[in-house]
């Protein structure tokens, strides 16, 4: 793993774009906001810069680093067509980059995925769900927010099983991870079964291989302890 900070481009100078840029910058990502607006019309954020980019010109896209050192690209324009265009252009320039699109209507998700987006965020659907949870399951809702967005003692974390782990081939049931570290195992990506994520509720006793990913909920210390366990096996 490199120690270089991750670089992200956020396209779309609108409330979503600014909010995403803020949140990424808060977590130490080097963020550049891009749009087709003149530089002096954009109120710059405290932690991110702004670049004027014409998304229809591949040269300009290359110049801001697409196909270069940019790790993530967020297509957050308000127009669906612009997002699809940007995703397609960026995918053509950089085949390995993570591209996240903004879904504004129900069917734009599929278009963005077809255009090459690695993932699609639908803020309205999430908000709708959230509002529903707030009014119907207020407790579960608050708890989930605390855990996911990490302002509680509990944290949601994913742990990658390192190469050459001593635990290779051991069954989850014999390791008793949950009891030993006082964690909750939410699920696992078991490379022995493909790249799919399995929720722990399904009840399959997975065997640990290197490169598996465990998703757990627990205190920070417990998570760190498990991380050590996965690499050292003790």
């Amino acid at each position, binding site marked *: 793993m490199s120690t270089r900070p991750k670089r992200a481009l956020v396209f779309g100078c609108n409330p979503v774009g600014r909010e995403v840029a803020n949140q990424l910058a808060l977590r130490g990502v080097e963020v550049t906001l891009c749009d087709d607006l003149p530089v002096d019309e954009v109120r710059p954020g405290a932690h991110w810069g702004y670049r004027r980019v014409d998304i229809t010109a591949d040269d300009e896209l290359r110049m801001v680093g697409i196909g270069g050192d940019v790790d993530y690209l967020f297509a957050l324009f308000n127009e669906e067509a612009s997002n699809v265009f940007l995703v397609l252009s960026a995918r053509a320039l950089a085949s390995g980059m993570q591209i996240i699109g903004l879904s504004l209507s129900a069917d734009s998700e599929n278009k963005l995925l077809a255009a090459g987006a690695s993932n699609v965020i639908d803020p309205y659907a999430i908000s709708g769900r959230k509002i*529903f949870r707030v009014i119907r399951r207020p407790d579960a809702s608050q708890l989930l927010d605390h855990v996911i967005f990490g302002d509680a003692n509990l944290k949601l974390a994913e742990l990658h099983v390192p190469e050459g782990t001593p635990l290779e081939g051991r069954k989850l049931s014999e390791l008793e991870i949950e009891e030993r570290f006082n964690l909750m195992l939410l699920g696992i990506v078991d490379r022995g079964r493909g790249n799919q994520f399995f929720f722990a509720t399904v009840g399959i006793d997975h065997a640990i291989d290197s490169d598996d990913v465990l998703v757990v909920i627990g205190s920070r210390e417990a998570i760190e302890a498990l991380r050590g366990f996965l690499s050292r096996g003790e």
Partner: protein
Amino acid sequence: MRARANWLVRLAYHLEGSKRYRRVKSLVRSILVEQNSPARLYVDGFMIVLVLASIFGLIYEVRHPELDFDNYLETFAVLVFFLDYVARLWVHDDAHRIVIDHYEQAEFLDKPFDTWKAIRAILKSKWEYMTTFMAIVDLLAIVPTYRPLRLLRIFLLFRLLKLFRYSRSISEFVSVLAEKRFELTTLLGFLGFVIFAASTAIYLFESHMEGGQIETMVDAIYWAVVTLSTVGYGDITPHTTEGRVVTLILITTGIGVLSFFTSIIVSAFTERMPMVKARRVVANLERQKGYSVVGGFGRVGETVARLLDEEGERFVIVDPDHERIDLAHRLGYTALVGDLSDQNLLSDIGVRGRVARVLCLTGSDVINLYATLSVRYLNPDIEIVARCDKKETERKLRYAGATHTVSPFRVAGLIAAEYLEQPVAFEAIYGVMTGHVSVLVDTVPVNPGSWLDGRSIGEISVGQQQLLVLGVIAAGQEPREHESNSYNYCDRRFHFRPRKSFRLHAGDMLVLIGHQLSLAHFRESVLKGGQ
């Protein structure tokens, strides 16, 4: 000179002070006048049946004058109508208040109390009611009881007009027509002129004719109306050339007038249809309680509505945009066109009492804020969830009275950041949050006396049902026996991954993760006592 309190004033004060009098009066008022009282439904139904029965009795009597049964019905009906009329006259205003007002005014100005002036004021107020259209109809329904006057019996048909009072759909029809009063009166004036001119002309041309069919002015008017309406019975026909020319003109005019008339009515209804529909929706809501109001049917509103619908929750959608409301109707939701900041609309849909919560979910922070404020003003206890797109608005919304705020863009930002840090965990939890996967985080309350109450985590065997116990939100702050680790969570305590020996108490809340079917099954088995 001091104003002297005479018998009238004393009576007025007595009535004002009498709780019973006021109770009875408000009861009568609620039965007869108030739009939304539940009793009114039955009273109106009864009156409609009575009106129809008395009219059918009248029809029946034509051929069977010897039956007595009809007389009883008639007497009963008239008695009820009479009581109805008197009661309405009584509750129309508070006569004793008028007396008291007059008396107090006189006392204040230090003038003698003029009894007759007060009585005149009462009579004037009552007369105002008596001259309203519906009051006249009511009166006409009672008056023709004096049978010997045969002509008056036709007025019994006025009882049918009483139906207007009792049926909402008819009064809606009338109000639609009333809206086009100007057009209709203009047309009616024109119609009167045409009929008068045509009937006079035909009378002048034809009445002196040998073998002519028009002998009187009544014949002429009858002929003119039949021709104008394009009914044209043909029992009376013109015989002179002049008469035929009049006929031609009259027929042409008649077609024009009729089509004009039709178009007025049609346009009145198309204009009013959304309002009539909205009023239907409101009328249906009046019988319900504890529903949600979804303000704004955009992407967020749509998602919330779908989820509420799946859950079997009742809700009504309010949006100023006709197209969105049409979409909501197509999806089978209760929806009406309107603005959430409209105070009248808000009280009509029951924000003052029957609504459990209002969701302000439009795409504009300004509108959401204004709606929140309007709702909070009407009801200080209601739950309000407001959407805010700008961070700064959140505080203002809280200040305006929102119970919860949700910011789609902030959520998107957090989710995006989470995605970069932990893509796998993100996929899992994003699936849970958007409903893409069928695994849910859900809470099951431990109700006092339920099967869960007093049982330990080990006993409820959630593992067999493929559920994970994320934790228990405890009712109290105090630590429990066999506590593993717990955190303060708002004003309560959250026990993370409780041990098998952890005992549930009433008021606790189990937080479970699992497939929605497992969760549903678990809830059901809790209700059945662990089966």
